[in-house]
């Protein structure tokens, strides 16, 4: 008996280690794909892609897609879809413009009102989906048309802008360098004794400090959870894997931080995005709310019979989606510094594609925040890289479509093989 339990424990440990490796490989596959795509475009654009200014732009250009992808992940995991997010974000941008430009409302108050409007829109769609059991595809298709029309009506078919400077900071701002610049390489002087543009390397030291703190926190937390596992007598993943994994992640983060620091520092938007990503990772991995959403998406009948209030849960998921669409709309409007009737057009496609590239299942119940974020970056890097290369917009669409199909086919194929 005792020998049997021992072998069982051993087998357990081995299985969980294998499981960890297998899980990780799937996740790393996506990261590797992103890196491969980045390297490809770095080569094809003669090094433009990895220039600090371009990396910063990449973040700014994709922030609203990523923010909506977080909500879309929950929606898709719950077994639904939201086609209205593009229209909703455009509509909320229009509301913000009307409030600030025509009614001269304070930007902060406007932001709060707009987030509430987004939540309300999410609730109004979620009500039909959750309680009246109308398919989400239909409800949000209707929402897509309704809010596209409403933003046209609200703006009278014209662009409204510009916004107060305080509001523009949401998208165009960078965090202040409270410590002061750090000059790494002095500028070379030309014959006239003036510095040559771009020859100096001056770093945003506050950004650097934040980056180091973040990496330290990440390392500390993964060490702690490892220690926690071991103190409960469970085998953690192999130590070498643990070290390599953390080293690679830290290196990537530090590299990106360095690039940001050598331009203008961290964009405000990146801070908002980072906090939201961390929050959604926490919600999906650690909170009962997230667990219930996954359970519901996996088998809604079993979830209901386990005491989960599936209707209310669906309702909440759509409220969250609405608020995130509103935030994305604000960021996009702030970035353009104007609200246009065309804002948000087609965003839903990029958002949904990001979530599916990130490994979510159209059947519900499967998906990861990290996957959705990386999926959004894959789409973003392709947009960015192909634009720099001068690929026509028509062919960009074709290539993006094929990448989406390829990613999902690859996933399904892998699953069937397993």
């Amino acid at each position: 008996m005792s020998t049997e339990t021992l072998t069982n424990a051993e087998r357990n440990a081995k299985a969980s280690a294998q499981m960890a490796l297998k899980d990780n490989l799937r996740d790393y596959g996506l990261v590797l794909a992103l890196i491969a795509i980045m390297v490809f475009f770095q080569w094809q654009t003669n090094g433009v892609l990895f220039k600090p200014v371009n990396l910063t732009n990449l973040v700014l250009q994709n922030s609203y897609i990523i923010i909506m992808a977080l909500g879309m992940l929950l929606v898709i995991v719950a077994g639904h879809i939201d086609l209205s997010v593009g229209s909703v974000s455009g509509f909320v941008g229009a509301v913000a413009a009307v409030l600030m430009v025509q009614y001269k409302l304070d930007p902060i108050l406007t932001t709060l009102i707009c987030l509430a409007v987004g939540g309300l829109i999410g609730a109004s769609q979620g009500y039909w989906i959750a309680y009246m059991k109308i398919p989400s595809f239909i409800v949000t298709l209707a929402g897509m048309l309704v809010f596209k029309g409403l933003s046209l009506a609200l703006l009278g078919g014209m662009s409204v802008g510009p916004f107060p400077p305080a509001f523009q900071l949401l998208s165009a701002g960078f965090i202040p360098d409270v410590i002061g610049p750090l000059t790494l390489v002095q500028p070379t002087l030309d014959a006239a004794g003036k510095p040559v543009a771009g020859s100096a390397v001056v770093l945003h030291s506050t950004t650097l400090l934040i980056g180091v703190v973040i990496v330290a926190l990440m390392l500390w937390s993964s060490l702690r959870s490892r220690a926690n596992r071991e103190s409960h007598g469970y085998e953690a993943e192999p130590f070498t894997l643990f070290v390599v994994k953390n080293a690679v992640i830290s290196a990537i983060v530090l590299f990106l931080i360095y690039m940001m620091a050598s331009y203008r520092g961290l964009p405000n938007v990146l801070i908002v995005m980072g906090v939201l990503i961390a929050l959604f990772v926490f919600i999906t991995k650690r909170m009962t709310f997230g667990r219930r959403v996954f359970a519901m998406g996996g088998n809604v009948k079993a979830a209901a019979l386990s005491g989960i209030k599936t209707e209310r849960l669906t309702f909440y998921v759509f409220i969250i989606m609405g608020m995130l669409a509103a935030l994305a709309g604000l960021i996009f409007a702030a970035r353009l510094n104007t609200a246009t009737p065309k804002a948000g057009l087609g965003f839903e496609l990029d958002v949904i594609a990001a979530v599916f590239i990130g490994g979510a299942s159209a059947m519900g119940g499967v998906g990861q925040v990290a996957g959705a974020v990386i999926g959004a970056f894959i789409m973003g890097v392709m947009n960015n890289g192909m634009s720099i290369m001068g690929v026509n917009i028509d062919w960009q669409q074709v290539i993006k479509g094929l990448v989406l199909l390829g990613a999902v086919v690859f996933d399904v194929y892998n699953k069937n093989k397993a």
Partner: protein
Amino acid sequence: MMEKTILEMRGITKTFPGVKALQDVNLNVRAGEIHAIVGENGAGKSTLMKVLSGVYPHGSYTGEIHYEGQECHFKGIHDSERQGIVIIHQELALVPLLSIAENIYLGNEQAHYGVIDWNAVRRGAAALLAKVGLKEDPDTLITNIGVGKQQLVEIAKALSKEVKLLILDEPTASLSEKDSDALLNLLVEFKKQGIASILISHKLNEVGKVADRITILRDGRTIETLDRHDISEDRIITSMVGRTLEDRFPTRMPKIGETIFEVKNWVVHHPLHADRQVIKGVDISVRKGEVVGIAGLMGAGRTEFAMSVFGKSYGQRVSGEIFLHGKKIDASTVGRAVAHGLAYATEDRKTFGLNLIDHIKHNITIANLKGVANNGVIDDMRELNIANDYRKRTNIRSSSVYQTTGNLSGGNQQKVVLSKWLFSDPEVLILDEPTRGIDVGAKYEVYTIINKLADEGKGILVISSEMPELLGICDRIYVMNEGRIVGEMAGSEASQEKIMRAIVRGEGKAS
């Protein structure tokens, strides 16, 4: 009497992975007779009919089928239909939003080059409806007529295929008495026209009324074929259940305490047909440390009763009272029912019990996430410890708690479902067909878990269609039929004959 044999099945053996569903079964049907097949659930009746109609194609079973003097090798249901053998399944195969006429000719459209001749369809349908005695417009949608009439449409559909041998699988299970009588009269009418019928039924009174001969199946074997003048209910019942209880159940010394759970005057209506009562005033009680069984045939309303008690998960217009420790409780949602200490382990673990794409750990904790979380944040380590603990206690065989439940065997899936409900720390557990589709070894383990729970002082209600199982594990047994309790007996006094008698004689009246 016509003595010509129309169908002879000889030595049919059909094996599924792990189970012998049919073993050397013989069936002989004469031309123009009504031949009844009776037997317990799982005796192999439906499997035998699927072999006959080609649902299980030739080659997937052993034995011979001779029909009208020729040996037949049906490859699919089309082959058998071409020979005039038509089967009407228990679940009707009609498309609700198509008309009666369209359904009658579904897959057999009256068309020239793909263009449907609607006049021919309507004329043909009207003629067939007249034959089965259904006075409805052929253009009426199926969804707008009752189940009894739908059954007649199925028969009209069979007639459109020039049927010579009609097989009806529990045709009257969901019909009222009047509709049942009409249907049975129709079979007698067909008999005069030379159409033979095979009637599968649990209702021995009906069988006695119309059948010329009866074949009794038990545990996948033919027991005997009786002639009309031999048919007596007692004789049939003895043949149906005649087997001894072997040593398949762990022993237990019951320590039964006070009543902890009571349901009074429970009435439930069908979820779609608001005026149809499915549960017609049921009263039951369970005592502390007691294992109580609910016996009955499929369709008796047992699952519907349990699910409606558990957070109104079935039906509409639910009324009645639930008491726990003598206090009336509100179990109108699953959440409330669980909070009061009720648990319901479903009969259909794949559809209602498990998230098959997730692993064991998450499935075990999902009904009691509060038990592994503080303020909505899950404590990973506590969850892992609990999952491992239950995996050991219920003896779930898997590589780890991270194995996907969809890849487990039926027995291990059932143990995950049980673990889930054990972790919700219930006082009363309702176990619906807890051993359906699992092997003998796993059954023993499930019985052991049930016994342990009873010893811990929980009240346990077991719904099962396997009578030996109820006799083996229950302290007390209720018998349910057609939405009513038709019998109650102590486990020590119960026997399969008594239960069967209560079912076939009760006919809805409490005995």
